[in-house]
């Protein structure tokens, strides 16, 4: 959902720190929402996966706060880190969720977010002129690459045949149309 024209403008180090922090905050919020949804629909296995993903993003957010030092990224993030039309890149796509989704599907959702974040920071490396901001963007690109690789590893470990509506749910809703 994110593309270059839609993305916030990054020209300084503090812009980049604020946007990077907001990306993590949006990702945390989304994973918590998904965990809540899965708890509501009694998919406790997936709820735990989404809570773990939220915790992981929380660690990344804390790291960015540490890097930011005196820059108040929590205040700046909502101001400068908004996507004009679409959605924050690492925020999981809620429309892909399903009450009987599997662990591998949840991890694919996380992978898609990490790939969008990677693409965003790669674009910042290309476009930003400030040398400090470019250095940090390169560092963030490397981190996102590690996250992408980690998601691939986890998906390989957990990839099982997908559970499907109507197969394991004895009282599945009947889609119309």
């Amino acid at each position, binding site marked *: 959902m994110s593309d270059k024209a839609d993305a916030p403008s990054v020209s300084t180090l503090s812009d980049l720190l604020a946007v990077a922090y907001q990306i993590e905050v949006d990702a945390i919020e989304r994973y918590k929402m998904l965990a809540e949804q899965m708890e509501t629909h009694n998919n406790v296995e997936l709820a735990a996966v989404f809570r773990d993903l939220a915790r992981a993003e929380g660690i990344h957010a804390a790291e960015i706060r540490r890097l930011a030092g005196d820059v108040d990224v929590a*205040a700046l993030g909502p101001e400068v880190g908004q996507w004009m039309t*679409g959605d924050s890149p690492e925020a999981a796509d809620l*429309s892909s969720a*399903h009450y009987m989704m599997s662990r591998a599907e949840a991890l694919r959702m996380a992978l898609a977010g990490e790939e969008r974040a990677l693409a965003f920071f790669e674009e910042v490396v290309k476009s930003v002129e400030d040398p400090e901001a470019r250095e940090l963007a390169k560092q963030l690109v490397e981190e996102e690459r590690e996250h992408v690789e980690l998601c691939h590893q986890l998906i390989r470990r957990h990839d099982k045949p997908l559970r499907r509506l109507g197969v394991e749910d004895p009282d599945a809703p009947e889609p119309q*149309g």
Partner: protein
Amino acid sequence: MSAEPKPAYKASDFKSDIAPIWCPGCGDYHVLLSITRALAQLGKPPEQVAIVSGIGCSSRIPAYTNCYGFHGVHGRALPIATGLKVIRPDQTVIVTTGDGDGYSIGGNHFLHACRRNLDLTMIVMDNHIYGMTKGQPSPTTEPDLDTALTPGGTGLRPFNPLVIALASGANFVARAFAGNIGQTTSIIVDAVTHPGFSFVEILSPCVTFRPDQRSWKTQVHPAPVDATDDPARAARRIMTDDGFNLGVLYRGNRQPYTPKFGGSGCDLSELEREFEL
């Protein structure tokens, strides 16, 4: 970039502690996010905002926010909101409804709310189906949608809510897509700040009973032209578009209706005399 003042409110300030019970994948989760973000941007405290709804999946929104809320009866969100706005014009009043609640059971109220042009915002989460009651056709359902209750489809022409809103006098008409959170947020801000009756149709997929609507995210596109203040031109554009044009489509300049209180302008004792037997 210089440090800007910290925003007064965050989206989370407008969320209640109640966990939504919509189906995972439902577009209404996105709409809830957009509404809370819009309210944060508007900068009004939760107690200066009232969200009024009828019945249906979309009508659960008031419970999920911590503004004033009223979960009304089926189709009657607009009369409740109208009464509230008349007596408390200081409140920002937002109606959240769906295509069944808002256009079918509440269809008549929709027409007259547009006509009255009170300073309200109506947000309709349109999924072209009754989701809460398991998939009956609504006024915006396609005529050939083959459902369990309507084998072969209803054969009925769908309602065009945006054109009807224009014809009835709505002062602001926009279409959004739930998944475009940034754009939907800014449209809601725009709708609430525009004077008069603002109508926002949000295409909000029902992934359970209309899984085909998952493709909406690839079908929507920005409206090719800016909003007009000419309702006839706006209506022509909407009637000839593909139903997936997004953005503010009409921005009118009618004065909102503001009822006067503190006197009817006539002498009550004279009126009493007219009723004397």
